[in-house]
């Protein structure tokens, strides 16, 4: 029963070449205006968000499920990495551990709903995320509680990834690896199972696909990617606390996948770009407003909400959808 009251004009799809050219121009502009260090720092952030975004794209876009708890899985990765690095374990040990813990978390979060699917995944992942957030704040003897935890620089023996260029290089390399892995998964038997489930779960089950297992795999892999992103993020920021990984981050990741277009892996990259850019654009917009308006508390919240509503109204299926 769809009865649209106001029809907004559908904008034509942006040609790929024009988008790439605009992107290059914007990148050159940022480097020229803000300096290369700033641009590389932002690149590290975008690549890290894109890794987490790939996880959401697999769950939301490929398998057609919904997750509201990715923020907590980033937290699991970030805290595991932070704690292990503080105890002097090298990244070849701590990074796989962070990925494994977050993948386990993703599996556990999806477990109660895996035979119910749909909205129930939203409920169980949300509940899992709220439990994790509370545990991180309460287990002060391990996590430092609400005060948080400082994380040392990412270092392997004498080689340390301090400073924006090294951080950007590590993030982009990790993103490339994650991207290649996702490419393989999407083209594999498992990826085809996800597509079948997204299209019609009943038909998929009738064709002999173990739906519960394929969905659990999507959540575990998505969790592992979030864990990797969380571990890198902990090093780049140098500090982790429970409120960094709250419900807002989970929703930001969902928005990322939605805006970028969850059907394609590239959506994670576009979405990450936009999600990192939005706060800065809002800050720019704030400078343009008259001073008595710009000083208003809650303006960021209001504008972010308005952008989200506008995007959803403009393209209910996502920017790059169909």
């Amino acid at each position, binding site marked *: *029963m*769809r*009865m*649209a*009251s*106001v029809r907004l004009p559908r904008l034509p799809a942006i040609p790929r070449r024009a988008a790439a050219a605009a992107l290059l121009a914007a990148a050159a502009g940022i480097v020229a205006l803000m300096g290369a260090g700033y641009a590389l720092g932002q690149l590290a952030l975008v690549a890290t968000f894109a890794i987490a975004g790939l996880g959401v794209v697999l769950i*939301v876009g490929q398998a*057609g499920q*919904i997750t*509201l708890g990715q923020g907590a899985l980033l937290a699991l990765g970030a805290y595991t990495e932070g704690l292990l690095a503080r105890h002097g374990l090298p990244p070849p040990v701590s990074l796989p551990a962070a990925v494994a813990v977050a993948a386990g978390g993703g599996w556990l979060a999806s*477990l*109660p*709903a895996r*035979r*119910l699917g*749909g*909205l*129930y995944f*939203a*409920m*169980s992942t*949300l*509940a*899992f995320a*709220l*439990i994790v957030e*509370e*545990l991180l*704040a*309460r287990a002060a003897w391990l996590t430092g509680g609400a005060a948080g935890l400082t994380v040392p620089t990412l270092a392997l023996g004498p080689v340390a990834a301090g400073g924006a260029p090294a951080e950007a290089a590590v993030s982009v390399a990790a993103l490339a690896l994650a991207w290649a892995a996702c490419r393989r998964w999407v083209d594999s038997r498992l990826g085809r199972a996800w597509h079948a489930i997204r299209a019609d779960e009943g038909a998929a089950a009738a064709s002999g696909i173990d739906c519960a297992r394929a969905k659990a795999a999507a959540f575990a892999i998505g969790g592992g990617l979030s864990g990797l992103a969380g571990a890198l993020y902990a090093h780049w920021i140098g500090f982790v606390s429970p409120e960094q990984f709250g*419900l807002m981050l989970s*929703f930001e990741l*969902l*928005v990322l996948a*939605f805006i970028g277009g969850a059907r394609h892996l590239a959506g994670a990259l576009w979405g990450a770009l936009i999600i990192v850019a939005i706060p800065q654009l809002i800050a720019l917009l704030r400078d343009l407003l008259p001073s008595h308006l710009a000083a*208003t*508390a*809650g*303006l*960021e*919240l*209001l*504008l*972010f*909400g*308005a*952008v*989200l*509503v506008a995007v*959803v*109204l403009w393209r*209910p*299926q996502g920017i790059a959808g169909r």
Partner: protein
Amino acid sequence: MLTLLQVLTSGIAIGCVYGLVALSFVLIYKATATVSFMQGELLMLGAFAVLALNAGAGVPIWLAVPLGLAAMTALGAGLERTVLRRALGQPHLTAVLLTFGVGLVLRGAVTAVPAASHSVHRLDLPFGDAPLAIGSLALAPAHLAAIAATVAVAILLALFFRHTRLGLALRACAEDPRAAALMGVPVAAMHTLAWALGAGLAAFAGLLLAPLAFVHLNMGLIALKAFPAAVLGGMTSLPGALAAGVFLGVAEALAGLVLPEGAKDMVPYVLLMAALLLFPGGFGAAFARWRG
């Protein structure tokens, strides 16, 4: 024994708030198949609307409450007409993001009012704060008022859904919108009605919460507990949602007595996950199956 009774009363009272928010969520979900992530913001806004009318504009409380609730109901209907109906028939993700975005806008708008964001407020009951003493048992009037008001709302809703044409039409629309449309039910109008009722109920829950806690920007976070209540109630049952809300309030209060500090806040979410694993149809369905 006395402590237990007092803890139980406060648990039931806060459970009534959970239950009412869960009820508003399930009502919207059933009637329009839209998942609303803004019930907490509507709750917060409702409490602030009445506060602004009462403390700000000097309207007496007996008039401010119906005026505030009417305004919130109108807001729910208006949002449905302009924005929310575009999420109809789309995947759940669309509705989740759309309602979350509208919630952020509402929250940002309230934050922009300096009087609202700089301090916490109290909305006092018209009949004072003196505890009601029954023997040596002292009960807070705010708790009793919340319980009584919830019972009244439940009865009114039951009468509305059972005995009015409008209630029947809304139920038909929730059951099968296509068949309802063929029977002459104006389905689009029913969606507007569902959102109006949902916004009004959430605002009412905010009014009940106001004397129990303070009126502040983050009071809407309590609506997160409505999701466990909705799931425990079976996702599509209005009485189930209300009962599960009360159950969660009591379970939380008892957990506060026996479990270590902080565990109380996790109880509803642990119960949600356990319930999905063990009784995926909600407690009502599990009970019906057990009886045979």
